């Protein structure tokens, strides 16, 4: 494997990143707005107040515009696992395929069937049936998120499986371990609650625009109250699940954690750099090492965050790459040697089985299993192990901007809720403008969350088991480049169209007559 086609690997990664990032521009609004609409319609059905029906219908129109492009971008992602990552599809398809199929059967049909009732059933079905349909769309959307996030969490922390040397793949051994892995549970709640925050910011921002224009005052205030309560509730859950994410990361993906915090040398009582600026030292030969040029730290907080213990040792990038015997950390070089033994033993096992030599096969199998935890590192046996270090500045800054924006949204929800309840919001133009301009910030925070999760785990497609260089399909690079640019053009065109249509519908405002 001396000749890895890096341009193919990188273009395949770029294409996946492009489609995932475009897809995630639309998903969070679907996840959160569906619930906000369901709350609003529930209020309409309970009170019979036609104003709530008007409010529900307005947000529903925006929901539909966003939903369509979310569906379009999502289709590509499912199939890209096969088209661009064919080795991956076989190597872990036995586990990874199941959540995708369950997502289709359990969530997509629910979503798409009741979506039709939600939009075309106003005059055809009873109020209660319509309301149930709206709730089912919300539940369907969020169920879909559950299954795809279970799949993603499994890539970050593979659980509930066993490698079968006869089929050369990982096979599911315990479905419940896959579904209820701590990483999966935490990831689901962290992601959907962040989507609820984005949706709340969106509703508040759009409502703020109406207040700035002195239009639809009652509509805007009612929408703000629903969204800010929902957003505040979601924000508190984000803090809890964010804390869980950090602990899971420190435990299962220490390199990602070290990169996110830019800790080069591990330490006890590790401080958290709340703010920091990084610069690469020219004297340094290590490709990924970054120095702090400025930082504001809170002592011991990182140790607490990672291990709930102020004196806990947090390993740094150097410890993980070069090993640290005192803290029982094996170097990457050692791991890649063990990984190579594992890979070679698999080949030996297979040859011995073919030749009918059971004793050699059994010995090779034992050696393979002893070293399987390092399997993926074997592909780096003849390579520079620094390739196993992710992009530090991107991970570091993304995390800080995401957290900073999250705190900004909490403050916004509290301030805007209080001002609306006190009936003073209309005159607070600065707050209203802040709310309006927070809409793009919510999208930035949302995307950056995925940058931390996905860039930070590079080069692993499956943590420690399968790197990108061994997962990619064998296609010529030019084909991937062409499809990359086709998707870029299509998605960008559709995104611009979507924004224009959204803006136009918002300017139009809710229908004046309720039907």
């Amino acid at each position, binding site marked *: 494997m001396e000749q890895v086609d890096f341009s193919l690997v990188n273009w395949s990664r770029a294409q996946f990143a492009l489609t995932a990032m475009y897809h995630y521009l639309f998903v969070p609004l679907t996840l959160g707005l569906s619930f906000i609409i369901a709350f609003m319609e529930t209020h309409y059905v309970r009170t019979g107040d036609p104003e709530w029906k008007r409010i529900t*219908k307005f947000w529903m129109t925006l929901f539909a515009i966003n939903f369509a492009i979310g*569906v379009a971008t999502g289709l590509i992602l499912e199939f890209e696992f096969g088209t661009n990552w064919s080795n991956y599809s076989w190597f872990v398809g036995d586990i990874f395929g199941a959540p995708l199929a369950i997502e289709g059967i359990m969530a997509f049909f629910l*979503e798409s069937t009741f979506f039709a009732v939600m939009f075309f059933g106003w005059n055809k079905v009873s109020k209660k049936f319509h309301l149930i349909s709206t709730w089912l769309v919300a539940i369907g959307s969020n169920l879909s998120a559950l299954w795809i996030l279970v799949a993603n969490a499994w890539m970050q922390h593979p659980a509930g499986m066993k490698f079968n040397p006869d089929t*050369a793949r990982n096979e*599911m051994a315990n479905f419940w371990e896959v579904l209820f892995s701590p990483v999966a549970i935490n990831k689901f709640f962290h992601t959907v609650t962040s989507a609820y925050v984005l949706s709340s910011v969106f509703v508040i921002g759009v409502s703020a625009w109406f207040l700035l224009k002195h239009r639809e005052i009652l509509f805007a205030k009612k929408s703000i109250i629903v969204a800010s309560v929902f957003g505040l509730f979601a924000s508190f859950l984000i803090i809890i699940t964010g804390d869980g994410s950090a602990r899971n990361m420190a435990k299962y993906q220490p390199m990602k954690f070290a990169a996110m915090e830019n800790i080069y040398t591990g330490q006890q009582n590790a401080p958290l750099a709340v703010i920091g600026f990084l610069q690469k030292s020219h004297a340094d030969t290590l490709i990924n090492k970054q120095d702090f040029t400025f930082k504001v730290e809170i002592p011991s907080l990182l140790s607490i965050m990672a291990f709930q213990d102020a004196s806990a040792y947090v390993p740094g990038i150097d410890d993980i790459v070069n090993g640290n015997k005192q803290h029982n950390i094996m170097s990457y070089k050692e791991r890649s040697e063990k990984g190579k033994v594992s890979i*070679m033993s698999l080949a030996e096992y297979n040859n011995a089985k073919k030749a009918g030599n059971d004793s050699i096969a059994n010995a090779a199998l034992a050696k393979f299993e002893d070293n399987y935890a390092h399997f993926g590192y074997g592909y780096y046996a003849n390579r520079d192990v620094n390739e196993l270090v992710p992009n530090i500045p991107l991970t570091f800054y993304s995390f800080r901007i995401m957290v900073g924006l999250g705190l900004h949204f909490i403050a916004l929800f509290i301030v805007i809720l209080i001002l609306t309840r006190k009936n003073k919001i209309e005159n607070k133009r600065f707050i209203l403008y802040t709310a309006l301009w927070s809409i793009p910030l919510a999208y930035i925070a949302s995307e950056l969350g995925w940058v931390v999760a996905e860039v930070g785990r590079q080069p692993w497609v499956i943590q420690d088991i399968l790197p990108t260089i061994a997962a990619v399909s*064998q296609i010529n690079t030019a084909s991937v480049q062409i499809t990359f640019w086709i998707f870029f053009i299509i998605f960008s065109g559709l995104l611009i169209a979507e924004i224009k249509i959204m803006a136009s519908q918002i300017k139009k405002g809710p229908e004046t007559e309720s039907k």
Partner: protein
Amino acid sequence: MFETFQYITLQQYWWIIVSLLGAFLVFLMFVQGGQTIIYTLGKSEDERTILVNLLGRKWEITFTTLVTFGGAFFASFPLFYSTSFGGAYWVWMLILIAFVVQAVSYEYRKKPNNLFGHRFYEILLYVNGLLGTILIGTAVATFFTGSQFSVNKMNLTLLTGNKMPIISEWTGVAHGLEAAFNIQNLALGLTVFFLARVLATLYFMNRVNNTEIIYRIKKQLLFNAIPFVIFFLTFTIWLMLSKGFAVNPATKEVFLEPYKYLHNLIAMPIVAALFVVGVALVLLGIILPIMCFEKCHTKGIWASGIGTILTVFSLFLLAGFNNTAYYPSTYNLQSSLTIENSSSSLYTLKIMSYVSLLVPIVIAYTWYAWRSIDSKKIDIEEIKTESHVY
């Protein structure tokens, strides 16, 4: 319940489920067929609005079936996913692109300020209808004609030399597009295209309340039924007369067997019955509105729809059952995929089988929801009362 099932039984059960999903997908592609005749049937803006809205209220179910078909194939036969999607890259990418552009077109078509104008989105719908049907038909035809690839799972252990550790290697020159230049594949592609248009005309007959459109639909039904029958017969006759990819049940060796698919039909009388009844129902659905339009024009979609599902289902069973390689390799016969060598593990198939028990519930609520909103035929007045219009 599934705990006692043998591995081969579950593999066959999942092939049946995938086949059923494929069959429903082909039936639901009446949406794609309809998208290619919007301008043929609708001469005024109002008429086109009726047609687009009729299709627009169903497009998502076709889309969802496609996604679930992909997910179910991945979960139950991951080696197919890995080999075909990673190899026949361009065919699948073009199919995906065709469906991506469809997803937004209904929603954006009539919205003000939609950047490209409504004609643009109608063109996208046409592209989806044309490419989506022909390419899916072409791709499915390779289940019988074969593709050029090799599979070696131990390639994973390649750590030295110039080769990357790729399990499935595609040797077809155009990464899947070569399939579209094979006459037999193209015959099935065009069969699916014209069948989708036939089903669309029958669907419109059942749902449209507009005499001008209905008059044009009658003509279009015949115009599309003739090429459909010609291409279908071409493909079927060729299929029955050609060599097929048989598997020796004892040694698992793949070899070419003359008249294999005809033999499969004879060896599996239930499949043969499904095929014959399916074809008869498709034809009945076409003939009914032609012979007794006044009384029968709403019934054609039921006969042809059920017929399509039965026919496509039986074709999938012909491809995968009775010791047949369902995804054959013409480059290296022994790399051909069978339901045994490409499936998920026993444990995963059991888990997935429990999940499959949800399918009847899905069908039941879909049926109930559709009936709730589709109780009356559609005309422009009905659409004008709606707050959500495509």
